[in-house]
């Protein structure tokens, strides 16, 4: 049901504005109509003082910081509940300081982590190379007083390196020893051992010859290969330990701060909303005016609340809704709890228009019935109901929760139609002697009545939609729409007379009557379309027939489901081992149940959206979004640590 809305203006002196905006925000009754978007308004929009602009910029920055922290913490802790630790007595600056403290800690952890990870990458490379060359190291490398120098060279440079080694031997009076080890496809590691006192000479020589050293970290440079390997492996171990400690600290930090940060996020967003609200109002030199939308039933409540808080300093008046603002009226729907999920399905298509009929209740009635008609199996219905029941305990908000609620009701209708069709896990019921109350879909002779049922459902559903559409057109005084919808309704009626008399369900006289009624309907549709109606009218009518035939999917999906179930039972029965047979049947039935949950949901939704809504539903208004706080604060902020 669409709630009746009122347009109100709130007028007062500007000195009360700073108190009024938070008051309206907390009360949450009013949707402020942005004065900058209202046509033909002569009052100028509020000009925010510099301080307010600066505050807005600071809050935006703070929100960006909080978002960054939330993202960092989300990697360590999955906090699904949005409502965090509640905070109170918390100024913007309080939050800012706390966020700065947390940011500093997180930045330190992140930087340290990055350093350790970089070290681990480079150390793993060193370990790899050192392990390769270690077995080939000469004895002399382990003697004290000797230094080791390592270099990586391309294999094409090996010959040049030998020449270089000879020169180094000369330079060191034969005290230079060199080994070459292949460490990659085209890379060789060269290790030189020589007395420690010749380090600068050898280094200088290598520098002159442009040989790039394998640059181990400084502390390992002159250690023997084995010692360097030991030290680096130890360092890697320590790095891993430190990384684990950092992750643990971040995890603890995330558990502690993620809910709080989410609360602060909401507090900051609320503050931004308040600043935004100032921009949406009008001002004169001393006074202000706020235009807004409010459910009619809440006008009295807000008036009373304003009177209590501001006495007579602020006045609220209900004003007329001019014609040019009709399209701006926000839409609030109010339905019983059981219909609410379908309200969301309708809004997924488009929010209803203010003067339209809210189709949520109709969808709530038809969608589960169509689902049941398609799935129609007692066994499947029971399984679906149990699945929906279990899932509803775990998922209680969002689109998924709505689908689960729909599935619960759909499962009940599946059981009902299962009894009518005599289906209990396909034809198992039939095998133990349970007869269908109406028809068995698994029998070939049932196909025709099933198709007829689907078309009859389509005719009924679409004619009902056309009646609602005609009523809507009548209310909106839209002559063409009225003529088109009534014409279609009458045309279908004429066709029903024709089909009825031709198939001898109705007396023969109905044939002529059918033609006449059909012609009247067709002419009405053509007239509603103006000059091109003579061509478009019949095309539109053929489209209408297509829509009715589209309901054949109810029969088609049902048949597919029942035959798959039959296959499951027959295949299971063919196997000699009872256990294997049951297993095969269970697997195929499970697959069929999953398909029976998905496909009929989409198809029944599609029948509402495409075939039914097209006859009457336009939608397109914006939803009612009152200016209200995202969070109400309670307790005090705690120390960072």
């Amino acid at each position, binding site marked *: 049901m669409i709630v009746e809305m009122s347009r109100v203006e709130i007028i007062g002196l500007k000195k009360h504005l700073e108190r009024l905006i938070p008051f309206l925000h907390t009360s949450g009754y009013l949707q402020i109509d942005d004065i900058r978007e209202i046509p033909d308004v002569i009052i100028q929009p509020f000009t925010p003082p510099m301080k307010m602009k600066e505050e807005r910029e600071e809050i935006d920055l703070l929100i960006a910081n909080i978002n960054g922290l939330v993202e960092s913490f989300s990697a360590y802790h999955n906090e699904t509940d949005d409502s965090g630790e509640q905070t109170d007595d918390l100024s913007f600056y309080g939050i800012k300081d706390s966020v700065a403290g947390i940011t500093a800690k997180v930045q330190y952890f992140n930087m340290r982590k990055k350093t350790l990870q970089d070290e681990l990458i480079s150390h793993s490379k060193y370990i790899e190379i050192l392990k390769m060359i270690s077995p080939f190291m000469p004895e002399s490398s382990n003697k004290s007083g000797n230094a080791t120098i390592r270099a990586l060279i391309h294999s094409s440079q090996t010959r040049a390196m030998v020449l270089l080694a000879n020169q180094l031997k000369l330079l060191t009076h034969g005290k230079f020893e060199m080994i070459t080890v292949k460490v990659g496809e085209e890379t060789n590691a060269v290790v030189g051992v020589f007395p420690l006192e010749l380090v600068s000479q050898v280094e200088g020589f290598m520098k002159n010859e442009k040989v790039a050293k394998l640059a181990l970290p400084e502390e390992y440079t002159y250690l023997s290969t084995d010692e360097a390997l030991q030290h680096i492996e130890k360092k890697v171990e320590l790095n891993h330990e430190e990384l684990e400690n950092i992750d643990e600290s971040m995890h603890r930090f995330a558990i502690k701060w993620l809910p709080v940060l989410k609360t602060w996020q909401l507090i900051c967003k609320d503050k931004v909303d308040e600043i935004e609200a100032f921009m949406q109002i009008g001002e004169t030199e001393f006074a202000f005016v706020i235009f807004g939308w409010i459910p009619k039933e809440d006008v009295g409540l807000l008036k009373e609340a304003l009177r209590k808080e501001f006495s007579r300093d602020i006045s609220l008046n209900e004003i007329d809704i001019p014609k040019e603002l009709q399209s701006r009226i926000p839409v609030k729907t109010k339905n019983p709890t059981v219909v609410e999920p379908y309200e969301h399905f309708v*809004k*997924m*298509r*488009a929010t209803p228009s203010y003067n339209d009929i809210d189709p949520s209740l109709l969808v709530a009635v038809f969608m589960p019935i169509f689902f049941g008609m398609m799935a129609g199996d007692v066994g499947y219905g029971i399984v679906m109901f149990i699945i929906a029941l279990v899932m509803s305990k775990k998922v209680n908000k969002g*689109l998924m929760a709505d689908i689960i609620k729909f599935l619960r009701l759909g499962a009940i209708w599946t059981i009902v139609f299962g009894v009518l069709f005599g289906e209990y896990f396909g034809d198992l019921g039939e095998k133990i002697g349970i007869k269908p109350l109406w028809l068995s879909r698994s029998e*070939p002779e049932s*196909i*025709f009545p099933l*198709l007829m049922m689907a078309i009859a459902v389509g005719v009924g559903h679409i004619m009902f939609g056309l009646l609602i559409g005609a009523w809507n057109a009548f209310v909106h005084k839209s002559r063409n729409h009225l003529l088109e919808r009534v014409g279609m309704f009458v045309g279908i009626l004429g066709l029903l007379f024709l089909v009825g008399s031709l198939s001898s369900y109705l007396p023969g006289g109905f044939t002529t009557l059918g033609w006449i009624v059909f012609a009247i309907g067709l002419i009405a549709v053509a007239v509603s379309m103006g000059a091109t109606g003579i061509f478009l009218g019949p095309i539109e009518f053929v489209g209408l027939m*297509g829509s009715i*035939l*589209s309901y*054949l*999917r109810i029969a*088609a999906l049902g048949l597919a489901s029942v035959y798959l179930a039959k296959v499951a039972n027959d295949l299971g029965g063919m196997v000699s081992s009872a256990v294997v047979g049951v297993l095969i049947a269970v697997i195929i039935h499970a697959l069929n149940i999953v398909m029976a949950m998905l496909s009929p949901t*989409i*198809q029944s*939704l*599609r029948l509402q*959206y*495409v075939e039914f809504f097209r006859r009457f539903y336009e939608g397109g208004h914006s939803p009612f979004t009152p200016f209200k706080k995202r969070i109400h604060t309670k307790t005090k902020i705690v120390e960072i640590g």
Partner: protein
Amino acid sequence: MEKAIIALAAALSIGTTAIATSMAQRAIGSAGVGALAEKPELVGSIIILVAIPETLVILGFAVSAIMLMN
């Protein structure tokens, strides 16, 4: 022989329409997923767009069912 031809015609009726539907849904579906990534609020419209070509296979089903019934 006649029965075989009827069965073949029925199979062709539903088979070709199923292929046509799948080709249309492939194109619409992939574009729809792309659009949803940008604008999740379009989910209702995307469901409609994806489901529209299914009428083809439903009509194919109706034709093949009528063939087999006769």
